[in-house]
């Protein structure tokens, strides 16, 4: 067993040799650190872009399709009743910023050329909807609905030839101000004017048509009392992450029905974004493997070039454990310096793209990365550098002294 003093003395020499080795060839040092830091940047930045993309997709879906929390009818019922009461209770919960009940129906729109497009029709109170969704902030043409609007309709871009993102669905040739034929699912057919077209550059959100309750009264012949129902109630919260608290409080208020968070509602979209995250993790793994391989190769080349010197050091009485530790320290330093520089570079690039978001077909994407991800990537990089240093050098260091000196 080695005494503690011998271990400390060995560590002192290991550190001394590592520093000398590290800074002896400054060009090599800069090259290795540049490779590691760029590897760190590429890994974390691609992850941050994917995170940003995922966030953007979720935000759009939340802002039009589900809200942060959605209340739906009980399983054996078609509607939620006493909606005004529920809205009042929900709005009283801290953190809730908007509550908008929807009555969902079906509608087919026909343009002047006879082209048809079928929409899900949402009957809304536009003022409430404006607090709960983002359709009023994403108008591509025309205007948003007002509470008293009748004879007009507000439609999603994806079913119009002019503003759609994809050509897969049937669409109509209509713009704001155009008169079109609306065929409601109760058989009523009437001419309506397109009041506005909204679009969030996301196919899943831009496929709805909206009319006011005033219009619905006329079309469906409903009274105010009959209007106090909803197919769904969309609840918008101030921040993400408080959904479970809101759901808990809604239940405490005695609100029944199916209450779900956006995560539960966005099943397919979650599958898609989770798939993207898997790609992101694979990219990260590849980045770590590249960093590991880089450090391994650099240390291995270094050690192979210094076989003779390693033999000499052993001949002088420096233990092979000390020499091994010196190479591990060296590669650890590559990891630390390269990693820190990588963090700085990544922070800079993310800062740049936060100010100048990346323009993607889905909209402007801001890269997102958590501190935890930085720490995780940094720790993985350091561990990789430790292992790379150990595995790259241990074989050569075990070599017979004379072979190392005279064949190295």
């Amino acid at each position, binding site marked *: 067993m080695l005494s503690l003093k011998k271990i400390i003395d060995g560590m002192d020499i290991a550190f001394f040799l590592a520093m000398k080795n590290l800074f002896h060839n400054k060009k090599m040092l800069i090259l290795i650190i540049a490779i590691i830091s760029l590897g760190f940047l590429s890994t974390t930045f691609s992850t941050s872009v994917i995170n940003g993309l995922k966030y953007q997709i979720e935000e759009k879906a939340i802002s039009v399709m589900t809200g942060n929390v959605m209340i739906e009818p009980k399983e054996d019922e078609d509607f939620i009743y006493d909606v005004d009461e529920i809205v009042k209770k929900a709005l009283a919960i801290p953190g809730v910023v908007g509550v908008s009940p929807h009555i969902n129906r079906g509608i087919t729109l026909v343009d002047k050329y006879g082209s048809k497009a079928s929409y899900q029709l949402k009957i809304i109170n536009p003022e409430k909807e404006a607090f709960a969704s983002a359709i009023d902030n994403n108008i591509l043409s025309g205007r948003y609905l007002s509470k008293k609007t009748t004879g007009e309709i507000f439609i999603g871009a994806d079913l119009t030839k002019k503003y759609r993102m994809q050509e897969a669905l049937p669409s109509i040739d209509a713009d704001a101000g155009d008169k079109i034929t609306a065929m409601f699912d109760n058989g009523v057919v009437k001419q309506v004017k397109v009041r506005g077209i909204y679009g969030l550059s996301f196919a899943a959100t831009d496929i709805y048509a909206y009319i006011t309750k005033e219009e619905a009264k006329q079309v469906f012949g409903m009274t105010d009392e009959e209007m106090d129902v909803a197919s769904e109630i969309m609840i918008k919260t101030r921040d993400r992450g408080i959904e479970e608290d809101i759901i808990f409080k809604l239940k405490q208020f005695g609100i029944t029905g199916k209450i779900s968070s956006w995560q539960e509602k966005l099943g397919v979209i979650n599958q898609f974004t989770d798939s993207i995250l898997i790609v992101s993790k694979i990219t990260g793994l590849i980045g770590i493997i590249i960093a590991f391989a880089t450090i391994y190769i650099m240390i291995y080349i270094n050690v192979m070039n210094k076989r003779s010197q390693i033999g000499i050091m052993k001949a002088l009485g420096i233990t092979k454990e000390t020499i091994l530790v010196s190479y591990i320290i060296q590669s650890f330093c590559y990891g630390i310096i390269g990693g820190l520089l990588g963090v700085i570079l990544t922070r800079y690039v993310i800062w740049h793209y936060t100010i100048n978001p990346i323009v993607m077909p889905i909209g402007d994407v801001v890269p997102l990365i958590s501190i935890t991800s930085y720490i995780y990537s940094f720790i993985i990089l350091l561990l990789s550098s430790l292992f790379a240093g150990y595995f790259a050098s241990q074989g050569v260091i075990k070599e017979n002294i*004379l072979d190392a000196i005279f064949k190295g």
Partner: protein
Amino acid sequence: MKTGKQDKKENRLLIDVKNIVKRYVTGDVITEALRGVSFKVYNKEFIGLMGPSGSGKSTVLHQLGLLDKPTSGQIIIDGVDVTQLHDIKRSYFRLHKLGYVFQQYRNLPELTALENVYLPARMTGWPRKKYMDQAKMLLEQVGLKERMHHRPYELSGGEQQRIAIARALVNKPDILFADEPTANLDTDSTKVIMDLLKHFNEEFGQTIVMVSHEPEQIKYFDRVVRIKDGLIDLC
């Protein structure tokens, strides 16, 4: 470093080499480099190991310097059977008891002359002042005080070999081994190195075992052990 003229007639046995055999196996070919070499080295002696090329003199030095292990036989250094030492104890034995000078200097290029010299002393755990003073004193002794901050590649062959000698002596070893330390040097540098070794032997009582094939160096040695075909040449 001991000081003052040393008494060369001290008869303390320092190295006892007993019938060492060294065989190298390459595939089916067995080469017997040493075939039973025995001799003794006493404290403060300056021994010359001489013999023709391929006679096995460097192989003997490698065994004595613990750079290699004999196939059989015993090497007792200062009462310790070093052939029985395990790896890490061999390292520490080399560090504390032995100094080694190679033919091709073998200094570490990333270290300055001073760093090269104090490296083994630092490994022993000496305080910084002690190993720095010792290294500087030795560099002064070998005439390189003014060049202590130079790196090996900035120095001549003779200067590099003087660094190697200072490095080998920094831990005040019981024995200094030198493997043809002048083979790569010109006549002037050779004289400087040999005079230096003689100086350390005579002034400080440093025991030295040196491999040489230069007959004109015999005058430096107290005694010559001749090796031929892997055996002590008694002629």
